[in-house]
């Protein structure tokens, strides 16, 4: 049997997603109509023999998280549990800490997925690839191709072209190493804990030797990427499965819009029933648009392409929305125009207002281009990016006479 672990991080992580992450933990931010990690969970449940999904992170168990767990379990009919780390333990430390939970029931293998990625999740294919490698079962890392310049922002994988064994791994190198990058989606066997344990032991020895007065350096903080993969590379244990399917990190609000687009496009292929359709008496729909069943949209509105309308949203007469996410409870009054923006929960956009962000999409002419994680400031000026309106911001109509 199999399990899956989703690493959801905690409030000190994901700061590039503020102010949206102030309201709701980033892993629960809605992309294409559902919380970010629901896409992960759905993909996991498609893998035969998947018995349990564990969320590992260091968020306090909030109402939002609890409610999500309940509804996800109901929808996907699989046990989903949240394992809260007592501190931020890193991408390796968390699973190491909960290794007994992960291994209970004796799974042959388990997936580990980062919450903040948007992907096609070719999990069955990774499983098949692992089985092809034969015994002993190898660890598989999902990889994809980036362009040379952007690869420096990710974990870079040098692999044997025939066997796909990972020969060398560097996290965010300063000079070019490889165009194949780490997608943050892994397939491990129980044997991985032995390797993580070795890292833990050696880190502990180092700390004792250093006689560090820094009280908060913990040996239990283990990073899969820098500490484990770098050590595993070239030892015949770690392999990369390359995918050409869509993949993107979701670090900033701009990348949420891009992810929204990728998932909506996936819906049009695999779940067209989830997308809105043009119908008499309904609004005009262009391209891929998701509308929550409780949203109310005027028939004269024109939505899309690449729009998600959340729960209870009101869209007034003659409203135009394109490449945007409208979060729960927001209200777009008549004749507004919303482009490349995220409109926050319960916001009101007054009549004839124009809300326009600057898209930060990857270069469409480069098939391997990834979304840029722009710095907030450059040369002392704020970098233009997608517009976000936080919770309950009323945006008044343009001043009247």
């Amino acid at each position: 049997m199999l399990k899956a672990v989703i690493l959801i991080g905690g409030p000190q992580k994901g700061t590039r997603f503020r102010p949206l992450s102030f309201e709701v933990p980033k892993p629960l931010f809605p992309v294409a109509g559902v919380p970010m990690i629901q896409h992960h969970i759905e993909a996991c449940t498609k893998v035969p023999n998947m018995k349990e999904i564990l969320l590992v992170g260091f968020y306090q168990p909030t109402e939002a998280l609890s409610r999500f767990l309940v509804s996800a379990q109901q929808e996907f009919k699989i046990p989903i549990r949240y394992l809260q780390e007592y501190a931020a333990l890193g991408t390796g430390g968390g699973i190491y800490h909960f290794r007994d939970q992960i291994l209970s029931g004796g799974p042959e293998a388990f997936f580990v997925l980062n919450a903040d990625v948007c992907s096609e999740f070719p999990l069955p294919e990774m499983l098949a690839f692992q089985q092809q490698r034969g015994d002993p079962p190898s660890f598989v890392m999902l990889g994809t191709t980036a362009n040379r310049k952007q690869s420096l922002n990710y974990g870079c994988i040098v692999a044997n072209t025939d066997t796909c064994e990972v020969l060398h791994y560097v996290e965010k190198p300063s000079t070019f190493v490889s165009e194949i990058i780490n997608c943050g989606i892994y397939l491990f066997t129980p044997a991985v804990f032995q390797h993580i344990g070795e890292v833990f032991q050696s880190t502990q020895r180092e700390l004792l030797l250093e006689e560090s007065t820094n009280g908060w350096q913990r040996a239990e903080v283990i990073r899969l990427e820098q500490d484990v993969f770098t050590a595993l590379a070239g030892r015949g244990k770690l392999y990369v499965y390359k995918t050409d399917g869509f993949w993107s990190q979701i670090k900033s609000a701009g990348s949420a819009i891009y992810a929204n687009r990728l998932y909506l496009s996936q819906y049009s292929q695999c779940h067209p029933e989830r997308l809105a359709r043009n119908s008499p008496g309904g609004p005009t729909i262009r391209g891929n648009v998701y509308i929550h069943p409780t949203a109310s949209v005027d028939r004269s509105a024109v939505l899309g392409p690449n729009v998600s309308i959340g729960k209870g949203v009101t869209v007034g007469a003659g409203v135009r929305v394109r490449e945007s996410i409208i979060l729960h409870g927001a209200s777009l009054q008549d004749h507004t125009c919303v482009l490349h923006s995220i409109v926050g929960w319960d916001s009101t956009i007054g009549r004839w207002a124009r809300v326009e962000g600057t898209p930060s999409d990857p270069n469409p002419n480069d098939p391997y281009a990834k979304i840029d994680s722009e710095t907030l400031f450059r040369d002392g000026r704020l970098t233009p990016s997608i517009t976000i309106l936080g919770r309950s911001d009323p945006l008044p109509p343009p001043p009247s006479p």
Partner: protein
Amino acid sequence: GAGAAPQRTGLTWRLPSPHSAMKALILVGGYGTRLRPLTLSTPKPLVEFCNKPMLLHQLEALRQAGVDHVILAVSYMSEVLEGAMREQEQRLGIRISLSHEKEPLGTAGPLALARELLAETSEPFFVLNSDVICDFPFTDMVRFHKHHGKEGSIVVTKVEEPSKYGVVVCEAETGRIHRFVEKPQVFVSNKINAGMYIFNPSLLHRIQLRPTSIEKEIFPVMAQDGELYAMELQGFWMDIGQPKDFLTGMCMFLQSLRVRHPERLHAGPGFVGNVLVDPSAQIGENCTIGPNVTIGAGVVVEDGVRIKRCTILKGSRIRSHSWLESCIVGWLSSVGQWVRMENVTVLGEDVIVNDELYLNGANVLPHKSIAESVPEPRIIM
């Protein structure tokens, strides 16, 4: 008798009596470059201000005050202008001459060029700057001028920031002008030259046929001779020679209409404040138009449009859900759906703006298609 208003019968105007008939010289000038892109398609005097060609506002008011001969001092000859003026001659029943300066003559030289026409009678004559709009006080000017009996009268108007202009220092009681001061550093006076004068033909002795500035060379001498008097203008005044001021002048003019001819303004649900709409224009549903909007002949405004402080010239179309503030939309242009235009955006003739764009202070030349937003003011060729 003198001062009686001409009677209007049918399409022609009848003069009161020949001996009180006066002449007027209007300094039209050249290419009207400050009002580009509009003046790239049409001579400036013919650009419609509040649904009437700029020059016609002045011509009709002059006619009303008993002028029967208007001389247009132009530095560039336009067939279109000539044709339009022939039409107005018929319609207004006045004589219109064009005085064409082949070389630049400044603000006084054109008077010397038109000397023969102006000296045909011994009556005083008007001189006007063609960009001026106000409640033209031509009849009052004649009365004022004849009362003091000196050689020249100029109309002055009060402004808030006089140091941007040349100010006039005059005696409060009589209006006798002492001197002119260009752009004073210290407050001297808040009255500036409003660009409207009456002169006796004897003035022409002071001007030679060469480039001459009336304010710098002629007026100071007249002031010293005690021959120049200032009449203060009541009511609004604006030089509408550039788009920003064109719109400000429009607001003032519409407010003046509200006082004098409120029936000409448009009222009804969806209309706010002073709005002038040509009867042939079509306005859609759920629009909010105004305050301070002028909509020309044959304009189509589709549903759900918001327009404030704009001039929409003939034959244009504003498509649905757009929002326009402080703009001039040129003849036959088309503004797409969900467009936002503001901050003195000016579209020339036959411009197309695609849907969902944002134009901030864009100055768009004729026949251009705009497919990208203009977030910062600039000229689009």
